[in-house]
Structures are given as C-alpha cells and as structure tokens.
C-alpha cells in the first residue's frame, strides 16, 4: 500500500520530530527508522527528507551539528530542540483529533 503524496508530506514533520525525540540522529538513520516503524508501507524518496530537515532547522525545531560517522566521513547530526518538543506535542494533539474522529466514523460504519 502506497500513501498519497499529501499525506506523506503532512506526516513528515511529526515523524521526523518524534524520531529525533527518541535521540539524536542523521538523515539515513531517520529514513531507515521510518521504513522500519511503518513495516515498509511508508517509503520516502530519500532526498526529500533533507529539505524537510533544513526547514525544521530554520524554524528552530531541530539543531544540526557536523560530526563524524563510524568510517570517519563527515556527517550532519540533528537534535530536537525545546521548541521542537513543544511543536511535537502540539502536532500529536492534532493528529489525535484526526485519528479519533476517523476512528469514531469508521467504528459506526462497522456497526451498521
């Protein structure tokens, strides 16, 4: 099952923030984590993650720092900021509203 473009775009911000809330990470690992968590249903075009990360960074929701990978190459690590956590909590409420509304609708549909 492939998700629509708009849904992927809308869910990108909370997903990235939630993954970074688990701990600091970098681009490739974030994408791997998303694939893993969604059981492979949520597949991003890899490159598209980076503009998202840069937007979050510009808005101060994440902070970035250059570090080194295990093989010694330069790698950019991202960390969630306090504002980022607040934004995540806010988004979580929003998604919860959407989720419970849809859930209520579809539960009723089943009963009829």
């Amino acid at each position, binding site marked *: 099952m492939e998700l629509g473009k708009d849904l992927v775009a809308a869910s990108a911000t909370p997903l990235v923030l939630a993954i970074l809330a688990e701990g600091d990470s*970098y*681009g*490739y690992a974030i994408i791997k984590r998303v694939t893993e968590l969604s059981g492979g249903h949520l597949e991003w*075009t*890899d*490159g*598209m993650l*980076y*503009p998202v990360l*840069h*937007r979050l*960074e*510009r808005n101060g929701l994440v*902070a*970035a*720092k*250059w570090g080194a*990978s295990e*093989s010694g*190459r*330069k*790698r*950019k690590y991202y960390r969630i900021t306090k504002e980022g956590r607040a934004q995540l909590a806010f988004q979580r409420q929003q998604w919860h509203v959407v989720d419970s509304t849809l859930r209520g609708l579809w539960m009723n549909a089943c009963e009829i």
Partner: protein
Amino acid sequence: MTTSLDSAPLEEQIAQWRLYLRRRRAIHGPDVEELEGHLRDQIAVLSQAGLTGDEAFLVAVKRMGSLDALSREFAREHSERLWKQLVLAPDAGDEPSKTTLTETLAVLSLAVAAALTIKLPALFGFRLGGGDEPFYARNGSLFVLPYLTAYFAWKRGLGVATCAWLVLSFAAAAVFANVFPFGPHSDTGALTALHLPIILWLVVGIAYLGGRWFASGRRMDFVRFSGELFIYYALIAFGGAVLTALTMMMFKAIDINAQWLAEGWLVPCGAMGAVIVGAWLVEAKQSVIENMAPVLTRLFTPLFTVVLLAFLATMVWTGSPIDVKREVLIVFDLLLVLVVGLVLYAASARDPQARPDFFDALQLLLVVSALVVDAMALWAIAARISEFGFTPNRVAALGENLILLVNLMWSAWLYARFLRGRCSFAVLEQWQIAYLPVYPIWATVVVVLFPLVFHYR
C-alpha cells in the same frame, strides 16, 4: 563496505553524481556532502546485502529521487540561494558561527602579519625605494606565501611531518634567494626573482591539497583556485589603486605630501595582505565567481586566435622577418604562457563527457597558430644565436619556450585526436595536470644552478 575490486569505478560513479548535484544552484556544498554521505550509507548497506557496487549505486541513486525534484525542493526551502550573496554571511547552521569567527580572525592576523613582514627588512637597513629593490624582488614571494601556506596548513589540518617539509622548503628558498652574491644589475638575480614564486606556488599547492599533491585528481582544484585568486586579486588591486589615488589627492588638498604613506605603506602592505584576503575569499565564496576564469577563457580564446592569425597573415603578406631583439624571446614566451593558460582553464571548466564542439576546434586553431608563430620566432633566434652567445636570460627564456612548446605540441595532437573522436577529453586534461610539475622543476634549475653556472652575472 564494497570490495576493493569494484570500489574504483564506484568512486568514479559517485564523483559523477556529485558533479551533477553541484551544478544545481539551489544545492550548496555542505548539502551535497550530506546527500553524498547518505548515498554512501545506502550503498554500504546494499552491498552488505549482496549487491555489486554497480547495482547498489543504481538502487541508492534511484531511492534518492530525481535530481530535478530534489533541487526544486531545495530551491523552495532555500530561496535566497538563487541570489548569490557577496557578503560573507555565515550559512545558517552549516557550521557553527564560532568556527567562522575563528577563521576570520586567523585570516586577518595572517594578512596583517604578511603586511608587516614586508616592512621588517627596513629595520635592518634594506630600504624600498633606496636601491634595495633587487633584494625585495628576490624575496617578494617569501614575504607572503609562507602565511598563505600556513593558512591552508591550518585549514586542512596538516600533519606535523608535512608541515616540517613545507617549512623546510621555505627555508631553502630563503637561502637560495639570499646566499648568492648577486650584483646590483645581476641577470641571474632577476631570474631568481621571477622563478622563485613558481616554485613556492607549488609549495602553496601542496598545502592547499592537504599534502596530497600526488592524488592528481585534485590538482585541477588548485588550478581553479589559482585562477580565481588571480581574479580576486585583480579586483582588490583595482580597489586599492582607487584608495591610494584618493588618499594622495585628499592630503594634497591640505598641502601635505602623502607620497611616503602611499609608497612606503599602502601599496606594499596592501599588495601582501591582499593575497591572503583574496585566498580567503576564494575559499569562502567559491560559488560566487566560481565560473569567472572559464568565462574569461571563452571570451578571449577567439580574440587571441584572431590576433595570432592576423599576425601570421601580416607577416606572410609583408614578408618582414621577426626582428630579434632582447625582448623578443620574452614576448613569445609570454604568448605561450597565455595560450597554455587558456587551454588549462578551458580544460578546468569543461565537462569531460561532453562531445567535441565548435569551441574545441577553436582551441585547436589557437594552439596551432601559437605554435606556428613561436616556431618562426625560434627559427629567427636560432639563425642568429651564434652571434648572441649564451646569456642567463636567453638560456632561461629558451628553456621555458621549449617546455611550453612541448606541452602545446602534445596538446594540439591530443586535441586533434579528440576532435576526430579517437580519445576522450579526459586524456587531454590528464596531460595538462601531469605536466604541471615540470614548471617548478625548471624554475628550481634556474634558481639553484643558473647563479653558479653563470657566476652571478
């Protein structure tokens, strides 16, 4: 990781991919690095899963998504990037601003140090404008290039061993510039002044390339850097000339002669400091005037070709032979240097994969006409060389002419083969890069052996 067997073509593929990414104006250097890191991680995982280097590369690139869509996303996120800014604003978040501040301070102190170093000999009685010009000419590059080298050694994080070699090279240069008893009008002394910078520029190049001079793939980067630095330096020099002229005129208005200030401080100190600042600007804003040297090459290649052809036609038409005077060899040497420069910078900006086009044919025409003109000049000189005898100037000029001639003849041959589709452009580029060390080697011969052979004449 990939096996060593297929890692070489894989590196080439990654380099190619990086080149394509670099062309996108919305995607900047650090982003390219970030994306490349991602690509490499992906390839590593896929190779571990059993894919070959080629397959892993293809899958990784495919997953990265189309470059057009990617650069559109980057442009949307970084709309400011489509306007390239000349101001040295730190790119938000790319590097901590502390590093930028440290670098700014380091560069400024190096520039000030270089500016003060040229005033140092005055304390020991060597006066600029007081008959010691040959001393200043011979040591000119030693006043500033050590600082430039120090900057790159620091920036690239060179090891102690490499640094020791660099210091040793400068020490040796200082010895050879000053140990010989050159007379006030010594030709060999003047030759040292001209050739020492060529050798020391190689030392700068070694520092610029992080000590890896022999990884020839990156030598072209240094060639590009040199060209851009030249352009920046010319711009700064122009600004400096305006500043100097204005200073003099303003002080003249209140009846104070500021000539000593301009000649003794502004011009020499500015000339030294500008090298460091120019190099820093090239490093910091590679993308701003990145394409300037190739643009100038494109502009002037046709013009020089026309001039050379007109010169040849005039010579044939009027039948007037080349009048062999003292400066003639120098003029034709300069002509060859210029043509080699045009070929080199055309090569530095060219996509090696592209098909031969009209401009390549024009380059060949330029090289061939320069060769014909030079052959005529050499013929005229050879016919009368017995009358002249050998002087240091003539031997140096002849040697240079020969070196450049060999380079251009082989370049012409390779160009011709390339135009007929017999070899790729990469071969021509490799030839130019491989030939680069010949110039400093010849310069070393001139600096070290000529004074001894010609008895400091």
